[in-house]
């Protein structure tokens, strides 16, 4: 039975490509597209002062890699147009009394006109700009104090920061291991669900049922090939992640492999369950998408589980992807092993066992 499925799957050349190419493509696209590091923010300037001081401030702004000055404006209307079209994320307006206020020892205002449509990005832009401004402000303060005859005053508290596991806070390092998890789940769940339903839909299921195959043998025959294929996919994607995206793999490969296998119990179990609930391939694919979407969104891959409302956090304990994301981040980035990750493995094992038992029982009852 196993052999038949294997042959059937591998004989179709197009299917072969389908099995191994999409996961890689998805990894590449997700790896490059998903990027929370924001740099080269497009900024336009409406400098109504055009003094040495205003230019000095603008130099500070452009000297960082965060901001790109793309336009010098002459009027408010131009500013409005650029923002409406989404050409720039922020327009800086320096009033005509900027230099005068500074020289007098008063407070000069700098207006930031921000495009708020992407509120996450807007907050980041505000944060970066405030950082630049506060650095510059500190220097100006020192100047003023010096001119008053006071010596150099230090900031009372300074921060010495160190980042563990991901020193440069590279977004990709956080994301690629998770994408590996997601892609493995996608492939294994969909393929398993479809493998069974396809026979049902085309009508070859009855033929299988008349053979002397026992239900368990049928299930194994249908699922084991895809478990193996998913394992190969997982390894392919891991290799791509490590060598193409240069994500470090600090922990043990065997710990990772064990995690993948336990995770596959879950996704294959889910796929099997879906197959017992679907009559057609379209149903299976829709159900798969319907389950995968919240699974990915509530896994901690993009949005931290800790930020979710309490009830939702409890709900994620039923999501196998949640445990797997913690596992991959732990193995790839933290370099920890079973001594730290065992709760996740226990969770995966328990969930997987439950899912498989339920789906196998359902499967048997449907056939028998």
């Amino acid at each position, binding site marked *: 039975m196993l052999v038949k499925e294997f042959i059937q799957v591998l004989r179709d050349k197009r299917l072969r490509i389908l099995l191994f190419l999409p996961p890689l493509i998805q990894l590449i696209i997700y790896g490059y597209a*998903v990027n929370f590091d924001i740099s080269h923010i497009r900024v336009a300037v409406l400098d109504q002062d055009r003094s040495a001081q205003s230019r000095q401030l603008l130099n500070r702004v452009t000297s960082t890699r965060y901001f790109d000055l793309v336009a010098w404006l002459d009027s408010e209307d131009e500013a409005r147009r650029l923002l409406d079209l989404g050409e720039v994320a922020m327009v800086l307006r320096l009033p005509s009394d900027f230099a005068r206020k500074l020289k007098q020892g008063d407070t000069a205002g700098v207006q*930031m006109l921000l495009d*708020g449509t992407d509120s996450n990005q807007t907050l980041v832009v505000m944060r970066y700009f405030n950082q630049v401004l*506060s650095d510059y402000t500190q220097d100006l303060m020192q100047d003023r104090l010096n001119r008053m005859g006071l010596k150099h*005053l230090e900031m009372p508290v300074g921060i010495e920061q160190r*980042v563990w596991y991901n020193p440069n806070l590279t977004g990709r390092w956080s994301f690629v291991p998770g994408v590996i998890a997601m892609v493995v789940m996608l492939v294994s769940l969909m393929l398993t669900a479809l493998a069974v339903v396809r026979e049902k839909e085309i009508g070859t299921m009855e033929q299988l049922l008349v053979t002397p195959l026992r239900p368990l043998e049928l299930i194994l025959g249908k699922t084991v090939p895809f478990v193996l294929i998913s394992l190969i996919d997982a390894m392919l994607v891991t290799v791509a992640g490590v060598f193409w995206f240069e994500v470090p793999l600090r922990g043990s490969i065997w710990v990772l492999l064990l995690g993948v296998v336990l995770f596959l119990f879950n996704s294959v179990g889910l796929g099997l369950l879906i197959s017992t609930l679907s009559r057609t391939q379209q149903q299976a694919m829709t159900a798969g*998408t319907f389950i995968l979407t919240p699974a990915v969104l509530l896994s901690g891959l993009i949005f931290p589980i800790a930020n*979710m409302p309490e009830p*939702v956090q409890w709900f994620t304990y039923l999501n196998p992807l949640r445990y797997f994301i913690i596992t991959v981040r732990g193995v790839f980035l933290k370099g920890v092993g079973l001594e730290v990750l065992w709760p996740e493995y226990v969770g995966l094992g328990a969930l997987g066992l439950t899912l498989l038992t339920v789906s196998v029982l359902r499967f048997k009852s449907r056939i028998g």
Partner: protein
Amino acid sequence: MSPPRAWAVFRKELLHIRRDPSSLVQIILMPVMLLLLYGYALTFDIKQVPTVVWDRDGSAEARQFLNRLFGSPYFQDFARVGEFEAGGRMLDQGAARVVVGLPQDFGRQVKTEGQAKVSVVLDGADANTANVILGYIQAVVSDYNLTLMTERLHQKGLTRLNTPISPEPRVWYNEELESRNFIVPGLIVVIMTMVGALLTSLSVVRERERGSMEGLIASPLKKSELILGKLGPYFIIGMVDMAIAMGMGQFLFEVPMRGSWLLMIAMSALYLMVMLAQGLLISFAAQNQLQANQLSMLSTFLPALLLSGFMFDVRQMPWALELISYVVPARYFVTLTKGIYLKGLGLDLLWPSAVLLVGFALLFLLLAARRFSKKVR
């Protein structure tokens, strides 16, 4: 073109859909689920981040600083440790996210106008959250510094020392910076893509796989009638889904619609047609349903999610991906929805995107029709 014949195909497709109510229900529930998730559960705002404190000083100043830190809802006083290793272990285990260390001379430095160096060790496994945490800690320190500096200057008899520059931020289009304001229009794009492309991509392939395609070809049906009849039901489903999404956005989440409803509906219908056409093209090109599904996932859903500007800024991506995004119809629809919903713009500024969408629709329909002819021959 005979309307009754097209209507017959339409009804047959409707029957197919009706026989499979579960798929339909799920497709309609998907926007509801997504909106609920994005509206209530998914956020980057941190809260109660478990923080470990390694206080080697214990002075009144140190306590004052820590009170500042834990006075906000962002940080939780998770554990106090006597040596760093204990805190480090908690980072490894994932029990805590950050270890804040106060040096032995913290109080002394603060009192004598020196500088106290606070060490902050962060868990960087989730880079984005680490950045947010760092930002908040910097803000607390900044605030604390300002208070102390003002005190120090007062002690010197300087009561009037203004801060040289003050930023005046003005946020346009989404003043409250509500992330849901931005998510709801974006989700409409995703939903239309799913209904338009995912569902239709299966419609023709299914016939071919089941063997009923020959029957259709042998019938006196014209190409245009088949296409119209097949796409019709999905168009209706798509518009219903859009209405649900817009309704939820308006009444449940109170996302303000600044522009014209009519324009929004018209543009949504346009984009839906583009997606239906693309789904149809995929349906003709694929050999079986699995292929059709994978193809539509890769060429419509994924780009709509990642390369359209919905979640991630396209300009921040490598140029290769940015280039690809120019041929992704979803990108132009995102421009349209954001423009109409949040900025209240009209066709006078948005016409390029609309024109491009029309072009895409025509292109896909033409290609689909050509492929259909090839199959018949």
